[in-house]
């Protein structure tokens, strides 16, 4: 770590980039999850599920371009190190994202006999993308180590990230749909919530065992005190959601937003935990954010733009969600 005085500009950018990844995981997380959950036995439920994400998936995916873009422009050395190491999973993820993205439009416009095929492409494209993302996260956490243990961990991570996306997707459906589909979504949410919880525990343990630095960060001093409330909060959220899901739908659909809200909290906690573990590294134990940062002048130019534009982006994102507020109905052009 060469930087003796901490330069705030790379810090701001790592913050912006982290925020973009987090927003991406939450937003594209739910629409990917909905894609993976598409039931093969009901055309009508598939339609409703896809209508529920129709107005949003496009903007959601833009957060991935934003996050990858920030990594590319603010930390180009890290971008090339990470994506050369993750070359093939990246290609698979992109293939998945392409398939599902186009299926959304083709399914209603192609010949009606092909509709079910496009629904399959949507489901398996989403699944391919989530598995690849989970695998990539696992590879990243284990610093691209090639031992079989690390690969196995990445495999586990692929399953658990998919479960996490399915959970937030199912929670989204509990919020946005009604009747039979809503009850079905509640069941999906229960199962995937448990899978995700197992995944979180596995990642926590692995993370601590990977390197002594991380162990010391969490348990090496007074900060150990924060571990207790965090664990409590995680446990509380998990149990509350499970209990609520058993009762869906409540009278007047009371608290239908609760599982989705809980999913967001879980995503934020997990994200912050990982970020804290690896700071100041941008490529675990290989490159710090300060070593990877672009020239100050260029960062400054982007920073000025971001400061002006980001509040606007957030404002019209909120506007768009307001326009499509409430339970899902058929989308008409």
């Amino acid at each position, binding site marked *: 770590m060469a930087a003796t005085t901490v330069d705030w500009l790379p810090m701001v950018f790592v913050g912006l980039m982290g925020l973009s990844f987090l927003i991406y995981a939450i937003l594209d997380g739910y629409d990917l999850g909905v894609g993976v959950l598409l039931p093969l036995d009901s055309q009508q439920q598939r339609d409703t599920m896809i209508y529920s994400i129709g107005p949003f998936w496009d903007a959601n995916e833009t957060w991935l371009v934003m996050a990858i873009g920030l990594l590319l422009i603010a930390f180009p050395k890290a971008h090339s190190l990470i994506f050369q190491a993750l*070359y093939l999973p990246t290609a698979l993820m992109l293939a998945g994202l392409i398939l599902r993205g186009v299926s959304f439009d083709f399914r209603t416009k192609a010949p009606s006999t092909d509709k079910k095929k496009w629904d399959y492409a949507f489901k398996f494209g989403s699944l391919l993308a989530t598995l690849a993302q989970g695998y990539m996260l696992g590879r990243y956490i284990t610093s691209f180590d090639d031992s079989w243990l690390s690969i196995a961990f990445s495999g586990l991570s692929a399953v658990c990230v998919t479960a996490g996306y399915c959970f937030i997707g199912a929670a989204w459906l509990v919020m946005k749909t009604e009747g039979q589909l809503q009850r079905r979504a509640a069941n999906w949410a229960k199962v995937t919530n448990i899978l995700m919880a197992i995944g979180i525990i596995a990642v926590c343990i692995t993370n601590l065992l990977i390197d002594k630095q991380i162990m010391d960060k969490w348990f090496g001093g007074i900060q150990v005190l924060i571990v207790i409330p965090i664990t409590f909060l995680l446990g509380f959220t998990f149990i509350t959601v499970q209990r609520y899901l058993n009762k869906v739908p409540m009278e007047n659909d009371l608290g239908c937003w609760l599982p989705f809200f809980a999913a967001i909290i879980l995503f934020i906690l997990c994200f912050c935990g990982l970020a804290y573990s690896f700071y100041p590294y941008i490529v675990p134990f290989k490159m710090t954010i300060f070593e990877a940062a672009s020239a100050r002048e260029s960062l400054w130019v982007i920073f000025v733009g971001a400061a002006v534009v980001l509040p606007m982006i957030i404002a019209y994102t909120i506007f768009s969600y307001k326009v499509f507020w409430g339970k899902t109905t058929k989308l008409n052009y």
Partner: protein
Amino acid sequence: MLDAAAIANDTSFMLSRIQFAANISFHILFPTINIALCWILLFFKVRYNQTQDESWLRVYRFWVRIFALTFAIGVVSGITMSFQFGTNWPGYMETVGNIAGPLLGYEVMTAFFLEASFLSIMLFGMDRVSNRVHTMATVLVAFGTTLSAFWILSLDSWMQTPAGFEMIDGVAHVTSWFEVIFNPSMPYRLSHMLLASGLTSAFLICGISAYRLIKGDNKKSVKQALNFSVTLAAVLIPIQIFVGDLHGLNTFKHQPAKVAAMEGVWETATGVPLLLFAIPNEQTRKNSFELKVPNLASIILTHDAEGEIKGLNDFIGAHPPVAPVFFSFRIMIGIGVLMLLFSWLATYQFVIKKHYPPWLLKAGIAMTFSGWLATLAGWYVTEIGRQPYLVSGILRTKDAVTTTPPEDIALSLTLYLVIYGFLLIAYIRTLFVMANRAVILEQANAVTIEQMPLVEPELPLTNEGVK
């Protein structure tokens, strides 16, 4: 005498180039339609607002669905691009990241989110927001797509004609953002591309409308769309030829090696003829089968019959591969001439004779995707014409390439090619399926035309179309 590592490196280099070319060629097809199509949709919408003529709304509703499909493919194929730099061309960002970074960043921040967020309101919001807000959303999406073109063409032009920077320890640092963004070739390339987009959309609308007409779809909206598209093409094509010429002069000034390849000029000479056809041979460094017009190349490029044009032999080792540039250029020009002939003839028929003969409609169908071909050919001229540099004079393409093993790249390339081939077929097929559907709908409703709902419902034959 190459060792195994060097061979692997060379293979990675070639495969990475093919992969980038495949990705960008596939991607550009869809924005090329949509940059202009969105403004055209706005025009349809505004015409409806003004006249309250429901056939304008019909035109809008038919084309907004195609716009949505095109947009989706454009978005997902664009995501691939943001990974390509890191996965295959790490040297690019390492050398010119301080310039490329902010330009790409501004594209994402100012354009992508704007388009993506208001797109859903434009597509599905008509009965959820007021008419005014809906029209406004359409304006914002159109503005966003054009802004996106502005940033990316600025960056591409900077790679062609870099300006406003200094090299410190092999890394480009900006001295003037104004000079970087408005670099010498940028205004020409941007105008040329925006006009190309207009023409591509015009011929697409013309082709699909002509197809519907031939199939017996006599709705007023079909004719409105057809009349509009041929008029638009007839207006844009002369402007495009004029701007294209200016762009060529700009290239002649800043990138003489590219122009020498476009014109197939090997030796520096005065009074250079224009080659209508030839087969350039890089081994013998000569052309065979030349078909030429004396002095015309000199006249076009220098406005002087005896003007001097620098030949490729002045740039040995630093000029692009000649044949692909030479032929792509002729394909682009050839399609441009066809566009001129067709659009003026069709406009003449529409304005004077008030009738399109069937053979002309069939010619229109044949030219549905002529804009794509011309645009791709044009991009091949400019991008292959930049070789062997990635950034003219600063960074050679082979110095930027990844060390990823060639097997991995071969695998990803195959994956992309399969997906792209499949999607291209599905896209073109779907356009005609949608056109057929609209025709069938017309026949089914011919009797009760006055009861026709405002919304063109989906084909009654689909499961969900029945309401």
